C-alpha cells in the first residue's frame, strides 16, 4: 500500500460534510497555519518540493514567492478547477467527494499569499460539483473559517465559486482570468505574468485544485516530511485519473515510486488491460503529452524500468519519453487505432483554439482536416510529411501553449506509429473496417487470461 495524503479519508461516510471532515482531523492544518506567519507557510511549501499538479509541474513555493506585493493593492488566489484536458478527471473527484480539503487548502494558501478574496474557477459542466463547493464554503463560513478575522488571526477571507461555460482554453491561466472578468477566454500575452498583473490587473496566483489540496497534508506533516515521500524532484503523492482499456478506470493516489508496469497491471491500481487484451500504447499525462508505444512506456530507451514520476516519464525527452502532465492516464489496447485516436485529439484542439493567433487557428484546422482524411482512408504518403510540417510550424509560435499541446500528440503519433499511418494510406478500404493491430510495439508483459 502506498501512502495516501489526499484520498486517505475519501471513503469515510459523510466526509463531504464539515462535521465529519472536522471529526476526521480536518481543519487541523488551518489551525496550525494561523499560528505561523505567511512567510513560514510559504517556506513549508517550498521545502515540500510540491510541484503544480495542473500540468506544467512548476514548483509551487517558488511561484508563490514571485507574487508582487505592492502596498494597498489587493492580491488574489484563484483555484483552477477548469479540468478539461482529455483523460483528466481527478480534480472533479476531490471536489465532489472531499470538497473541504480544497477549501482548507485554499484558506491556508490565501493566508500565506494575503488574498482576502479567492475564487474557484470551475468548468461550467460540473454544475453539481459547483453546488457541492458552495455548500462546503457555506459550512466553512458558518464555522468561522471564512469571513472576518478568521480564528482571531486578524485575517479576512472570502471565497467564491465562479462557473465557466464550456471552453478548454479557460484552463490556461490568463484565459481563465479573462473569463473570470466576464470576457471571452482569450489568453493574454505574457509578460506581464499573473503574479504581477493578474485578475483585475492585480497580483494573482493561479493554482490547480490538487496543488491547493496538497497544502493541507504539507502543513499537517511539515514540508520536510512531505518531501521524503516520492523520489528526487517528484515529492509527495500524485492523483492519477486512469481511463481507456483497463480493468479498473478511476482515480488513484500514487506516491511516485511505483513503476508504470505496476500501475497498469497490479490489482491495487488499474488491474491490467481489460478483456485479456494486450497493451498497445498509452498517453500517460493527459491528451497534450506524447503517446508512447508499450515497449517505451514500460521501459525507457536505455532499457531501465519506467516509473510513475515527473523525471522517469520524461526520460528520453520527446524522442523516446513523454510527460507526467496532469496525470490523465489513457490506455489503448491492441484493438485501438492510433490514427483515429489522434484524429479525435486534433479535432479537440481545433475546436478549442481561441483563434487569436494564426499558427494555432489555421494550424489546428489543417491538422484536423488531414487527420480526418487519413482516418477515412483518403490520406496520401505526402500527407504524413505535411502533418509533420504543420505541427512543427505551430510549436513555439503561439501566444499560449495550446498550440504546442495540439502539435505534440500528432508529432508523437507519427514518430512512433508511422507505419500505422502508412498502412492507412496503403489500405484505404480496409482501414475503414479493420485496425492495424499491435505490430512491433508488442506488449512485453505476458498476459494470462
Amino acid at each position: 500500500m502506498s501512502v495516501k495524503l489526499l484520498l486517505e479519508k475519501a471513503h469515510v461516510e459523510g466526509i463531504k460534510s464539515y462535521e465529519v471532515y472536522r471529526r476526521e482531523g480536518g481543519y487541523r492544518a488551518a489551525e496550525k497555519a494561523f499560528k505561523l506567519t505567511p512567510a513560514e507557510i510559504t517556506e513549508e511549501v517550498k521545502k515540500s518540493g510540491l510541484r503544480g499538479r495542473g500540468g506544467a509541474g512548476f514548483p509551487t513555493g517558488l511561484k508563490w514567492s514571485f507574487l508582487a506585493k505592492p502596498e494597498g493593492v489587493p492580491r488574489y488566489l484563484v483555484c483552477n478547477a477548469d479540468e478539461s484536458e482529455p483523460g483528466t478527471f481527478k480534480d472533479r473527484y476531490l471536489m465532489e467527494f472531499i470538497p473541504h480539503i480544497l477549501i482548507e487548502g485554499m484558506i491556508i494558501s490565501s493566508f500565506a499569499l494575503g488574498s482576502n478574496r479567492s475564487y474557484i474557477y470551475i468548468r461550467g459542466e460540473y454544475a453539481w460539483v459547483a453546488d457541492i463547493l458552495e455548500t462546503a464554503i457555506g459550512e466553512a463560513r458558518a464555522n468561522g473559517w471564512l469571513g472576518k478575522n478568521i480564528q482571531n488571526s486578524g485575517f479576512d477571507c472570502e471565497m467564491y465559486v465562479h462557473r465557466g461555460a464550456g471552453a478548454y482554453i479557460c484552463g490556461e491561466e490568463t484565459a481563465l482570468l479573462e473569463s473570470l472578468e466576464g470576457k471571452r477566454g482569450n489568453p493574454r500575452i505574457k509578460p506581464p505574468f499573473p503574479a504581477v498583473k493578474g485578475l483585475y490587473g492585480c497580483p494573482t496566483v493561479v493554482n490547480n485544485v490538487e496543488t491547493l489540496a496538497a497544502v493541507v497534508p504539507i502543513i499537517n506533516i511539515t514540508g520536510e516530511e512531505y518531501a521524503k515521500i516520492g523520489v528526487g524532484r517528484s515529492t509527495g503523492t500524485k492523483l492519477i485519473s486512469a481511463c481507456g482499456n483497463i480493468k479498473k478506470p478511476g482515480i488513484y493516489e500514487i506516491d511516485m515510486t511505483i513503476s508504470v508496469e505496476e500501475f497498469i497491471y497490479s490489482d491495487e491500481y488499474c488491474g491490467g488491460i481489460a478483456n485479456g487484451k494486450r497493451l498497445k500504447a498509452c498517453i500517460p499525462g493527459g491528451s497534450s503529452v506524447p503517446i508512447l508505444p508499450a515497449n517505451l512506456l514500460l521501459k525507457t530507451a536505455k532499457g531501465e524500468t519506467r516509473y510513475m514520476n515527473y523525471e522517469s516519464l520524461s526520460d528520453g525527452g520527446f524522442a523516446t519519453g513523454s510527460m507526467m502532465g496532469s496525470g490523465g492516464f489513457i490506455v489503448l489496447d491492441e484493438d485501438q487505432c492510433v490514427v483515429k485516436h489522434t484524429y479525435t485529439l486534433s479535432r479537440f484542439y481545433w475546436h478549442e483554439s481561441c483563434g487569436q493567433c494564426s499558427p494555432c487557428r489555421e494550424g489546428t484546422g489543417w491538422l484536423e482536416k488531414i487527420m480526418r482524411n487519413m482516418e477515412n482512408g483518403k490520406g496520401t504518403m505526402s500527407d504524413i510529411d505535411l502533418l509533420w510540417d504543420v505541427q512543427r510550424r505551430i510549436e513555439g509560435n503561439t501566444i499560449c501553449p495550446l498550440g504546442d499541446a495540439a502539435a505534440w500528440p500528432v508529432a508523437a503519433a507519427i514518430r512512433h506509429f508511422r507505419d500505422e499511418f502508412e498502412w492507412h494510406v496503403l489500405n484505404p478500404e480496409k482501414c475503414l473496417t479493420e485496425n492495424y493491430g499491435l505490430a512491433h510495439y508488442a506488449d512485453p508483459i505476458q498476459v494470462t487470461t
Partner: protein
Amino acid sequence: MKVEFTAEQLKEIDKVIERYPEGRQKSALLHVLHMAQDSFGGWLSVPVMDYVASLLKLEPVEVYEVASFYSMYHIKPVGKYVFEVCHTGPCMINGCDNIINYIKQKLNIDVGETTEDGLFTLKTVECLGACGYAPMMQLGDHYKEHLTPQRVDEIIETCRKEAAMAS
C-alpha cells in the same frame, strides 16, 4: 415568452455581483447567462442577451461575444432535452460511436438536429472530464455515465414521461 427574471432571481443576481469588487459586475456575466438560458427556453436569443446586457450595464456586443464563445451557451433554439455526447479519444475508445449511432437511430435525427416534437436535440461535445466513466453524455446539469443502449432507452423514457407530466 416574457423575458424578465423573477424578483427572487434578481436578488440572486445582486448577490452574485457582490462576489466581485466594485465596478466589476461584468464578472457576473457567465453566471447570469446560465440563469437566462435556463429560464428563457433553453437558449439565448438576441432579446434575452440584450436584457442581460441591460441588467449588467454592458454593451449588447459584450454579451454576444461571450455567448458565442462558450460551448455551453446555445445561440440557436434547442430541444427540451439536449443530449451532449462526448466523442473525444477516451470516450471513443470506450465505444461512444455506438452510443451516438444508437441515439441517432432511436430518435431518427442526426447530430445537431432536434426531433420534430421539439423534445430532443443530439449534439457531440469534446471531453467533459468523465473519461473513466465512458461512454457518457451531459443532460442538463447532470452527467449520464457508463452509457449502454438500454441506459439510453431508460433516459429517453424518463424524459418523455417528465415532459408528458409537465404538459
